[in-house]
């Protein structure tokens, strides 16, 4: 008979080999990009970054940035770790509470590379801060991030306690660490077992909208606020650039156009990635009289319409001049081909390590930058839209829908997996 800790160790071994392994695999491009950027920027930059984040007098904002990064990694890992733990596994001799705690541990393991990077930066940072306190703080912050990410019965309360715990942990003084540990401990005691995901109810019921849009909306609605927030970032940068520099009308328009274009690309990339993950191919639907071209067109229109507000907001960055109208017209004309590219990227996600987002971010940023400089370049791109739709439809038809690739995939919404 296994004793309780043996059961928990067995479950942790299992999750480390499945969910955590997959989460780490998924995040390889991100870590590789960060490592590459670090090498490109050089040791001086890394030293100053280390000082800003962990050096003497590093502020509350540094802690917020670090904790948000940890939270992002934990939130990416959590669904991969906890998916399926509320089904058949529940009949095995391990309590729901233990399973949830083990899932938290597995998510903490997935934050390992980021913790290691933080630890190296903390070592590099010069100052009188205690390294022991910093390292204990890092572990506490990882625990808090994992607690806030793993779905539990009292998830709202847990997040309410875990987020301040994580923020306090980065202050790395004795009182803050004790407070952070107490909050995290309380969150853990409050959390209870894993939340049952259950079948997702179709909450979005606008029957007059095309079926494909309703399905897509049900899949991505929860991610929309986060995606739009990411889009607001270049807009905020663009506004700051235009507002705080003495620029000519043309340069103001150029700034607004670039910011708006990049914001639209970010929204396109975020939504395409969400669709690829949460609305995988529905094999049976391919037997219906519903052409690949129609499927691509419906996705492209949906994605394009969701990105449009970013361009409209960009119009508010600079004063209304003819230069602004011309610049934003270029970005507007570029939106349809970019939306089709995004729809196509969804259909090639399994083959790409960087997912749908990587393809759109690369091609989209380049196209947006060129269009900002030479607006009329958007015209040939716009004229190429029908050809791009044909190419995307071909991609749709050539997808191997029965092929299973774990990367860039979440079981939720997968019609061939019952772990959702």
């Amino acid at each position: 008979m296994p004793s309780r800790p043996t059961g928990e160790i067995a479950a942790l071994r299992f999750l480390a080999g499945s969910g955590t392994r997959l989460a780490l695999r998924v995040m390889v491009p991100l870590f590789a990009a960060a490592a590459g950027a670090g090498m490109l920027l050089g040791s001086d930059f890394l030293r100053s970054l280390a000082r800003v984040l962990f050096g003497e007098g590093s502020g509350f904002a540094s802690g917020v940035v670090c904790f948000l990064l940890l939270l992002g990694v934990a939130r990416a890992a959590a669904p991969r770790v906890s998916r399926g733990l509320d089904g058949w596994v529940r009949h095995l001799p391990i309590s729901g509470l233990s399973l949830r705690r083990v899932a938290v541990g597995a998510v903490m393991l997935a934050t390992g590379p980021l913790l290691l990077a933080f630890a190296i930066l903390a070592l590099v940072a010069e100052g009188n801060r205690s390294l022991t306190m910093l390292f204990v703080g890092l572990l506490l912050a990882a625990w808090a991030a994992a607690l806030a990410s793993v779905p539990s019965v009292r998830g709202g309360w847990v997040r309410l306690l875990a987020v301040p715990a994580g923020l306090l942990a980065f202050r790395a003084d004795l009182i803050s660490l004790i407070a952070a540990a107490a909050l995290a401990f309380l969150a853990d005691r409050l959390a209870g077992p894993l939340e049952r995901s259950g079948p997702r109810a179709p909450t979005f019921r606008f029957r007059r909208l095309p079926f494909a849009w309703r399905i897509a909306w049900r899949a991505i609605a929860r991610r929309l606020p986060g995606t739009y927030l990411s889009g607001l970032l270049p807009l905020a940068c663009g506004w700051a650039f235009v507002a705080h520099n003495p620029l000519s009308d043309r340069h103001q328009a150029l700034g607004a156009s670039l910011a708006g274009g990049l914001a639209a690309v970010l929204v396109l990339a975020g939504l395409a990635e969400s669709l690829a993950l949460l609305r995988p191919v529905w094999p049976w639907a391919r037997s219906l009289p519903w052409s690949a071209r129609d499927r691509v067109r419906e996705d492209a229109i949906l994605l394009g319409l969701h990105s449009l507000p970013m361009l409209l907001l960009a119009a508010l960055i600079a004063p209304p001049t003819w230069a602004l109208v011309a610049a934003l017209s270029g970005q507007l004309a570029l939106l349809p081909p970019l939306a089709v590219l995004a729809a196509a990227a969804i259909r090639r996600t399994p083959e790409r390590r960087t997912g749908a987002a990587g393809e759109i971010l690369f091609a989209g940023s380049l196209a947006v930058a060129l269009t900002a400089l030479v607006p009329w370049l958007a015209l040939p791109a716009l004229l190429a839209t029908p050809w791009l739709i044909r190419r995307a439809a071909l991609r749709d038809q050539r997808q191997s829908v029965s092929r299973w690739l774990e990367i860039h995939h979440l079981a939720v919404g997968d019609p061939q997996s019952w772990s959702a």
Partner: protein
Amino acid sequence: MIRFRGTSFSYRRGEAVIANLDLEIGPGLTLLLGENGCGKSTLLKLAAGIESPDAGTVEIGGHDLWRDEVAARRDLAYVAEQPDLTPYATIREILELVCRLRGVPTTQVQEAMARAALPASLAHRSVRELSMGQRRKAVLAAARIGTPRYALLDEPLEAMDRAARADILEWIGGLLDAGATVVVVSHDIEPFVARAARALALRGGRLASYEALPGDLGERLVMLDQLARGGSASPISTSP
């Protein structure tokens, strides 16, 4: 003994699937019968600790499923109709987990796979890469690890080839000979008629228990067939 005490469960508020159920299921083969959607699988999920009741308790071997979770589940094997294994783990990883949690050496994985007629080459595949029959065999392989005293089997013969069916029936026979409590939900009742000790019929949220089945196999089959079609016979006890 599997014991339900005042157990109620609903997926939507006000639409009870199981209402105030008092039931004891002792050793032997119990057939859970009824029409599609009457709540058979839900009752099995409640007994397996997959769903927790809205009211009342469920006990396995005297242990409350939700207060004494580990002890209640220690000797429990559950085969779901839809094999909801995580697609991110390989079959071997899942079976090793079951071995460790049931305190059985992980060397039993190969044995369990062989007994379930799963080729060793599938050990490193995700459940997502398997056919329906293979997925069910993987769940059956997990059920056969250790020596379960309580087996809850939801359509155990579904999607199985003939050899696998014979093997599963032999396994169930072995469990019954060892004094286990086996509850089977199946529309395919003929293979279970001979060993059935009792039948439970669910109809409109009410459960009728038939403890004394006719000795004559022909009569027994007719009675069970009637119950499976949503009909009725003279029950020994009925839930309120």
